């Protein structure tokens, strides 16, 4: 394929930029997959400027780009850095492109000063908390092994006090599977209304203890079913990502398209603090692999994005990831809602981008779709259910929502 054809095909594809402002993390979760979380390097504002000058000038930039500040803990870098970086990005941005900033944080360092930044720039905030204190502190610990629950909750209370919307990500380990009721109680008591579950994955050097559990997919499906049913019954949850995020993929018309951003070159541009650039699954940045130049396609300080797209590492990754997607399409019944899986999980679990189903697929895609299809079946099998359904959906439509323009 010629370079011109490639650019045309991928025009406007880049809608997510993941920036690692530092690999350093102030804690040491037992399931962390990051290889360099002790390193204290910080990205320079000039590197950020170069990065976004090149992105905005490239054909790949989407009209709307989300910038995720992620991995290690982004809040160990001072607020002042982000003010500088955000202002620099805003100055470089063209009218045709909008940007949103988002942080994924352990919440421990959140202060009113951070909240001011979040509100000023309408930053999306995700806080990592694994449920009530015993579940959270079992894995989310400091380097000396002390639990981090109290400090994370301090950050959440600060967000709530300052009126900053946020969601939480809870890593589901084997101890969570039998405790959906306990999680619901915790979220309600804590005023948490928007919930995402990430399963404990095998990535990098970390081998998931969850993946070793017996009858895992069925247990996780039952966990989700119970959580979904009870949580929606309380009327106190706005968003349960594992279900609500899949509903539009399951219940969509034929003419709609499905897009898996982890398998499209440059749909996600992932950049470390030294300016090294990768794509596809963001976790790949920092891993090693001789066949793919350690997943690095170039450096933003010295290379152009168009040249990175043509690099040997990008071509090799693209070739193998596409082969894996095609294999998924040929053999997996869930392809229409998944689009070919997560390359990092294929590589970590199966040793190849060309692989198909993984344990991560079973939990993150297959089990939730099964839960939704099972609920749909129960409606279809019950003659009275359609009327009840209309009543329930109508009642839900009365729930208060706040529109912000």
């Amino acid at each position, binding site marked *: 394929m010629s370079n011109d054809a490639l650019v045309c095909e991928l025009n406007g594809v880049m*809608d997510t930029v993941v920036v690692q402002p530092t690999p350093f993390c102030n804690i040491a979760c037992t399931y962390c997959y990051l290889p360099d979380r002790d390193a204290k390097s910080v990205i320079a504002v000039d590197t950020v400027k170069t990065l976004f000058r090149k992105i905005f000038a490239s054909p790949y930039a989407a009209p709307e780009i989300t910038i*995720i500040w*992620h991995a290690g803990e982004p809040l160990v870098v001072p607020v002042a850095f982000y003010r500088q970086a955000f202002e620099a990005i805003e100055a470089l941005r063209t009218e045709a492109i909008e940007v949103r900033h*988002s942080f994924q944080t352990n919440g421990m360092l959140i202060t009113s000063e951070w909240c001011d930044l979040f509100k000023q720039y*309408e930053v*999306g905030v*995700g806080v990592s908390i694994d449920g009530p204190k015993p579940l959270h502190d079992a894995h989310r610990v400091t380097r000396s092994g002390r639990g981090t629950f109290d400090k994370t909750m301090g950050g959440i209370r600060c967000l709530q006090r300052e009126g900053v919307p946020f*969601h939480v*990500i809870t890593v589901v380990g084997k101890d969570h599977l039998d405790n959906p009721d306990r999680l619901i109680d915790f979220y309600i008591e804590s005023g948490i209304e*928007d919930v*995402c579950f990430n399963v404990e994955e095998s990535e990098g050097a970390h081998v998931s203890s969850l993946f070793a559990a017996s009858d895992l*997919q*069925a247990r996780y*499906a039952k966990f989700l079913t119970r959580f*979904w*049913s009870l949580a*929606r*019954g309380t009327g106190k949850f*706005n*968003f349960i*990502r594992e279900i*609500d*995020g899949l*509903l*539009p*993929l399951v*219940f969509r*018309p*034929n003419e*709609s398209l499905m*897009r*898996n*951003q982890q398998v499209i070159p440059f749909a996600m541009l992932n950049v470390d603090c030294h300016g090294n650039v990768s794509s596809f699954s963001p976790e790949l940045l920092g891993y090693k692999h001789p066949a793919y130049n350690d997943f690095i396609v170039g450096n933003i300080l010295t290379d152009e994005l168009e040249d990175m797209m043509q690099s040997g590492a990008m071509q090799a990754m693209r070739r193998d990831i596409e082969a894996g997607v095609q294999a998924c399409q040929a053999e997996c*019944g*869930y*392809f229409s809602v998944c*689009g070919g899986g997560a390359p990092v999980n294929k590589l970590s679990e199966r040793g190849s981008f060309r692989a198909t189903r993984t344990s991560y697929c079973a939990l*993150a895609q297959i*089990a939730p*779709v*099964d*839960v939704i*299809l*099972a*609920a*749909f*079946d*129960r409606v*279809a099998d*019950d003659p009275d259910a*359609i009327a009840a*359904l209309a009543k*329930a*959906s109508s*009642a*839900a439509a009365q729930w*208060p*929502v*706040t529109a*912000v323009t």
Partner: protein
Amino acid sequence: MKLPTKSVKILAALLPAGILGMSAALASTAPSAEADPAAASQGAAIRLAAIRDAVSSVTDQGIAEDPMAMDQNKDNMRVAWWGNHRWGNGGWHRRRWVNGGWRNGGWRNWHNGWRNW
């Protein structure tokens, strides 16, 4: 496999409520304790395709609003949230729905995206 007409009826009741209403309604169908959700995986590809056929039928017949048209309905943010995301093509929108839109991590789930944020 359920009859398509039944699926159309169900979806005609569900789709106008948007994601939140649909989630609440489906969740209200409490399963029995011994129910095995994995049983739903039989013939998943065919069943998912049948659902898409039914959704197309509902929107074509005007039983539920065309999701693309819903996008223009600025007064109904819940319905707009459904439509704003182009039915799975990935979404991002100037307007925000605080209770489930972009700011709460919801918008990006319309495509199958990265989940660690």
